[in-house]
């Protein structure tokens, strides 16, 4: 899967969890899930589960803890699916 496809899919996963719609409109690999998108920290667990389901991968707790930005999520998915 191309990185852009992964990125687009991650954005769709994040969309319902993002409280800052303005940040969603300018989302990039550098966008922080909590600081920029204002995702509730408790919901990071659910985002990881959605990523697992969408990409048919398993994300370890350690890897999940390392996801702070959209780019972190994309890199993790690309590594797991390539």
């Amino acid at each position: 899967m191309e990185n852009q496809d992964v990125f687009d899919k991650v954005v769709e996963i994040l969309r319902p969890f993002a409280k800052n719609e303005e940040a969603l409109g300018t989302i990039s690999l550098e966008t922080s899930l909590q600081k920029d998108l204002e995702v509730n920290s408790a919901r990071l667990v659910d985002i990881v589960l959605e990523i697992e389901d969408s990409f048919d991968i398993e994300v370890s707790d350690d890897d999940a803890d390392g996801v702070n930005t959209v780019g972190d999520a994309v890199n993790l998915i690309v590594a797991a699916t390539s």
Partner: protein
Amino acid sequence: MWPAALFPAWEFLVSKAKRRVVVTGLGVLAPNGHGLDEFTSALRDGRSGIRHHAHLEELNFACQVGGIPENVEQFQEQYLSAEELFAMNANMIYAAIGAIDAWKDAGFEVPGPEVEADWETGAIIGTGIGGIDTISQTLGPRVDAGKVRRLGSTMVEQIMSSGNSARIAGLLGLGNQVSTNSSACNTGTEAIVMGAQRIRDGLATRMLAGGSEGHSHYIWAGFDAMKVLNRTKNDDPAAASRPLSASAAGFIPGSGAGVLMLEELESAQGRGARIYAEVLGGALNCGGHRQGGSMTAPNPNSVQRCIRGAVADAGIAGTEIDAINGHLTATFADPHEVNNWSKALERAPADMPYIHSTKSLIGHALGAAGGLECVASILELHHGFIHGSINCDDLHPELEAFAGAVVHETIDLPDLRTIAKASFGFGDVNGCVIFRKFA
């Protein structure tokens, strides 16, 4: 007596004890209507919200009809964001819609996250069973399959008993007491009596109060197994809920939410709020499972004491009650309830106030019942009518003496002034509240 000036705390309590409580907002999500206009017309027109539900038939329920608010998925996103809905079950969604509607109806705007908490406003929104759909469909199966990790983050907030009121606190920025009470079918009425008491005590200026219940078949299954649901009208849903009837054969399960904005009178008047009614008084008690009371049946002495207590708390005589919106579920208890009202109000059958059952139209919404039926009662006061109690043309033979009081078809009653609403629940618990038109 010591001069009050020496005891400022005592003076404070005396002044607070005089606080009057009025209703300035209503929110309703019922099987036969969402919002005040729809619900009012459904009450007036005798429109039933009871429908046949195929999933109940497929699951071999004996009672295959019930009351479920309709088309909620089509408008819930007007109230709740995708992120909020992600963490909410039906009970929580119903409660939130009812509370937001009551809040707006009282003249307030939903505050943004930047607005400070409203320290003067709280919520007591009860539920009888709560998030059992989440427990049954998600929690149990995933835990039993060894997939605890797959539960995600929303499980606790959906299954904690206080999930409905907690969500409302966040939606509306409530800063006073926020809690969920639970006393089975007395829940909604209990919440309103407790909310009013908190305002009377000077501990809050406004309280959202009422009840909610989801429509999960996992909630209804236990009642079906007890054979307390009517299984004789699956082919005629609108005729299935038959309080006061000779052919009553059990209640019909319902769901939804009914929420009142209770407010201290001076606050309501100070901001020019519309006042629907005054909460004159209320009472709560339990029969202790004595004198015929049990986990599933009421102690008649406690029922009468509760009604008398509410009337006394209201500072009126039983003869001042114009109408009763009864608990009246369509079980064997209906005739007992009517007799208890007669004794408690000290009014002979021929002298009884009008009596009717909102459950005839919406079924028994369990923890939401008291809230929904209090909304109905206040709308009746506000608009000057009493809705017909349908499906009791064949009045129960033990109620023949009360026939003149039973309202079969909606009547206009511009002089309607005072309504008593009571709820009685499993556990032998009772609640009664007296509303009066505010003038």
